[in-house]
């Protein structure tokens, strides 16, 4: 079963807020910067797709979505 992991590189965040608009179940804004919402199940298909879309759009390339197929 694959496990999805999402990494947010805060040093690359440009604070545009795009991720919070395309992946509102995954990201929120705190202190002007994006934050991962706690207790999110990244293996949920909808959540995973939102995270991937946010990663593809992030102008700072601050979001990584990793799939562990083990």
């Amino acid at each position, binding site marked *: 079963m694959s496990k999805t992991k999402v990494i947010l590189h805060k040093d690359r965040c440009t604070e*545009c807020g795009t991720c919070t608009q395309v992946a509102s179940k995954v990201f929120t804004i705190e202190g002007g910067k994006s934050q991962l919402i706690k207790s999110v199940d990244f293996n949920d298909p909808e959540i995973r797709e939102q995270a991937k879309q946010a990663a593809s759009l992030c102008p700072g390339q601050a979001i990584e979505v990793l799939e562990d197929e083990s």
Partner: protein
Amino acid sequence: MKVEARVVSNRLLNPYTHHLILHPLEPKEIDFKAGQFLLFQVTPGITRAYSLANPEHFRDRLEFIVDVRPGGPGSRFIQQAKKDDKVTLHGPFGHFILRPRKAPKFFVATGCAIAPIKSMVETLLDHQEPDSISLCWGLRYLKDVYLADYFAKLQSRYANFSATLCISRPEGSNPYFTGRVTEAVGSVVGVKKNADYYLCGRETMVEEMKITLRRVGVADERVFSEGSRRKTC
């Protein structure tokens, strides 16, 4: 939302500032709020955010003002864009938008961050906003100046609109305000406690303005901002 557009024109406002106009092909009109931005797909894996500079009522025209000095992939994309090129964009995005509140509006911008501010000002004027609209816009050198005549014409046409162009390091005789926007707001234009403030541009300017406004009694909920770091101009 994915947007496919065509380049209508790409001209220089000064040696490093591009005025790019696109025509949306699909969808044919873009519904956006003044102050928002679109993400340009500059390469398959890279996007860059640029604010819309046109007002909300121009839904079939996408206008951008971009400083290409950073020299990164976004800058190169903008420099190379030519008439009839196809461009893929995403959006609109962004929370730096006008608040629907009856109050004087004060806009402070530096450099190409004039783009979202231009969109906001033109949108308000089109809506026949009755309250006063003030703009302080800072550029560094006289040779950088663009859109000065445009804002002067708006000022002569709309009695409730005033624009102050600030040159921080003028080379020679300066017909505009000499100094930074933060100085102009305090000394020339004056701070109105009952106004809504929209700040966009250099992070240092935004932070300095927030401190100044708080010190003179402007409530934090009346101050809205977006720093240049948000967008890789």
